[in-house]
């Protein structure tokens, strides 16, 4: 659970995570936007289906993998949040073909 140190700064846009609208601020990457919205489970381990979430926030650990606009296994901590992004939990390993957005 996180909060913003500046309560007043405005929203820069909205994306969705598992159909749920998530507002984000300027400068947020997808992982930060989701964490700020209280989303704790980003993906399920392909090995044992255990819940996983960002660990390093700098592109090293690959725990923040999500599906963005139909493209699977995207590193949420490296991708700037953009309005209209459709984001889903990464469930297990990626499929061979990306899903249609």
């Amino acid at each position, binding site marked *: 659970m996180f909060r913003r*140190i500046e309560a007043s700064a405005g929203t820069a846009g909205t994306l969705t995570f598992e159909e749920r609208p998530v507002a984000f601020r300027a400068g947020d990457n997808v992982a930060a936007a989701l964490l700020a919205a209280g989303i704790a489970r980003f993906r399920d381990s392909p*090995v044992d289906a255990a*819940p996983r979430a960002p*660990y390093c926030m700098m*592109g090293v650990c690959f725990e923040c993998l999500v599906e963005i606009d139909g493209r699977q296994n995207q590193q949420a901590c490296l991708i700037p949040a953009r309005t209209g992004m459709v984001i889903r939990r990464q469930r297990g390993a990626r499929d061979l073909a990306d899903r249609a957005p």
Partner: protein
Amino acid sequence: MNGRWDAVVIGTGPAGMAAAATLAEGGARTLVVDEQPEVGGQIYRAIERNRGNDALGRILGADYLRGAPLAGRLRASGAEIRLATLVWRIDEDRGVWMRRDGSVERAEARNVVIATGAMERPVPVPGWTLPGVMTIGALQILLKSSGLIPSGRLVLAGSGPLFYLFSRQCVEAGVSELTLLDTADGRHLPGALPLLPKALTGQGWRYLLKGAGLLAGLRRAGVTLYRGVSGITLEGSEHVAGIRFTHRGGTGSLACDTVGLHEGVIPHQQMTRSLGCVHDYEPAQQSFHPRRDAWGLSSRPGIFVAGDAGGIVGAQASAHEGTIAALAILHALGRLSQEERERRFAAEARARRAHLAARPFIDRLYTPRDEVLVPADATMICRCETVAARELRRLAGHGVPGPNQAKAFLRCGMGPCQGRLCGPTVTSIFARETGDTPDATGYYRIRSPLKPVTVGELAGSGKETGSHP
């Protein structure tokens, strides 16, 4: 002239920014790339957005704001800056393969400066894969890049400069439910004390004074601090809910909502490994470092390594190393006389040394505990493939020689992170079990692509800068 770019610099932390700025100012055709969408690396992350933000600047402190003039210098230098650009392969002839926005490009470079910095040492403790458990560096990145701070009950567990710095930043940011578990091992103090006189020379005393100030600030703020903590276990099913630990021979437990772990930083060796650079294990920093000469030149021709990617030196010394590598390249390009190179090198090397005065003392004092380097059997070492320490020890007991063979048997290091998070621990466990040195044990063979690149992205490639200058 056999390349379009005189130099390609990888990374825009202090080393990369200083290297690229110095190169471009010296007239070299310089390309600098970073995987992140903003310059600054992790230490100066989001510095260009935050430089006017007084509230955040006050929390993050003067050392962070030092990044602003360096970023300004880079912008003014004339170096071409490509952000959100992944370098996923470097060829023997220094062709640098990049991906940006789904398209792939190869740039030819006469010289490459690898300034990919550090990553946090993995902290494999039971439960470290639970959501809500992050590195302290990750929590600080959220603060720098999004102004986010943990709400609810926060436990920070670890040791070293960043542990105290971020603890203090949490207090400044108004985190009220904060508990600190200091895992520094007091048994290192007698070994560290003889290094103290040297630590007070040069700029060293400033680092020690900053540390003392952080500790005093935490004490003044009345933050609960347990010292000499070991045996950390994180509990929870869907999310971390509690932490258990050993303290003064007894056990403690706390309910919590977020946990930050930190046991120091190590060079991010993926790129230098993939190039086949020679690495040596550095016992003082308990990590592998690429072998370099005084200019930062690695064992591969034209491949320089500057800053924390070559061994942990901190932000300011990193900037000096970036400059030193740039001086060597400018001279090789015929853009700097030997006399001028030597003169500027002497000043940069002196300044670098001054910033390193306290490093041996700090490294010794905060040497990680064995339980971090060679964790207990049940602890998960490879997060991607869920491989426990027990399985690695079992293989070592069966005569399996090292990390690359373990990969084949257990899949450790074969998940999406490509061994970044388990490699250091796997080498340590094998070395300990076999009685070999870490150098003899070796490390995962790292191959390109350094991060996943799709066939579609490759198929769409064909752009090449450099063949037709």
